[in-house]
């Protein structure tokens, strides 16, 4: 097999470019006239002309760019993460045993510089397990399944940017009473919401009473 051996700039080694192992065809491949950008791949136009192309699999990968410390949801009517990155494409809200002082649903809302938005959600809000029920909700991403004041909800609640200011939320909640299970139900919310501006806040909300325990953290993906 013949090839072109290129000696290293220093040292005694070399790199050899070789032709195919076996062919009767004569092929010409023309190298591009200039260097490409970082992470670009060499491509062909099918006529022997080589060029540079961006690898779409590299550019579509999201990376976790920020993660808050665990923080208490406090004892107010709601808890809101603010100051969110405008370039983020996904947020993960981790919830550890969030509880209210009454039997209420945990709800999630998003907003922009104008504040948290309370209308325009298109949410399927449901629970299933020993029994099941569901409803369409327009005021929040409502995780369905009213329990009692002793119930605590945990989960990894996802917010994905679909395009522009349109966001999708998918939230499954594990609910337990202290350290034991609570009725074997899966509580969930999934829906979309189009904001009027860039998302900059995510809120954990209850419709009545106050939050009384639990911690949250937010992971930002860009």
């Amino acid at each position: 097999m013949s090839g072109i051996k290129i000696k290293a700039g220093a040292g005694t080694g070399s790199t050899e470019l070789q032709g195919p192992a076996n062919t009767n065809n004569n092929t010409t491949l023309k190298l591009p006239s200039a260097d490409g950008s970082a992470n670009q791949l060499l491509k062909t136009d099918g006529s022997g002309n080589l060029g540079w192309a961006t690898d779409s699999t590299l550019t579509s990968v999201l990376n976790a760019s920020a993660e808050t410390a665990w923080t208490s949801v406090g004892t107010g009517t709601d808890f809101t993460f603010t100051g969110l990155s405008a370039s983020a494409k996904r947020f993960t809200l981790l919830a550890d045993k969030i509880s209210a002082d009454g039997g209420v649903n945990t709800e999630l809302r998003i907003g922009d510089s104008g504040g948290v938005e309370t209308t325009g959600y298109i949410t399927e809000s449901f629970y299933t397990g020993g029994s099941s029920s569901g409803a369409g909700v327009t005021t929040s991403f409502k995780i369905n399944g009213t329990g009692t004041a002793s119930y605590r909800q945990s989960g990894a609640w996802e917010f994905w940017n679909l395009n522009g200011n349109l966001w999708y939320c998918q939230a499954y909640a594990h609910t337990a009473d202290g350290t034991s299970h609570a009725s074997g139900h899966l509580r969930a919310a999934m829906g979309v919401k189009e904001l009027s501006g860039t998302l900059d806040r995510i809120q954990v909300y209850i419709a009545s009473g106050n939050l009384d325990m639990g911690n949250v953290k937010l992971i930002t993906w860009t």
Partner: protein
Amino acid sequence: MKRTEYNVTTGQRTEHTLSSSEETARNAEKTENDKVAYKEKRAFAFPSLADQLDMQYWDKKNGTTTWVDAIAKVKSDNPKS
């Protein structure tokens, strides 16, 4: 009433007391929520359909009122607001 905010960029945590207009809006929302909350609580507390069918079968067989009693208890435990 108060609400809690945590700024992801600065790490600053703040608590705000709701203004009177925010409290009014909050109370109005609570009133609307209370109107349907009992339905949600009942729906969640009812035995599964499979269990209810089983109760009805044995009630029919034994002349008992297990199913009616179970449903009545859920309703009385979660009265209309």
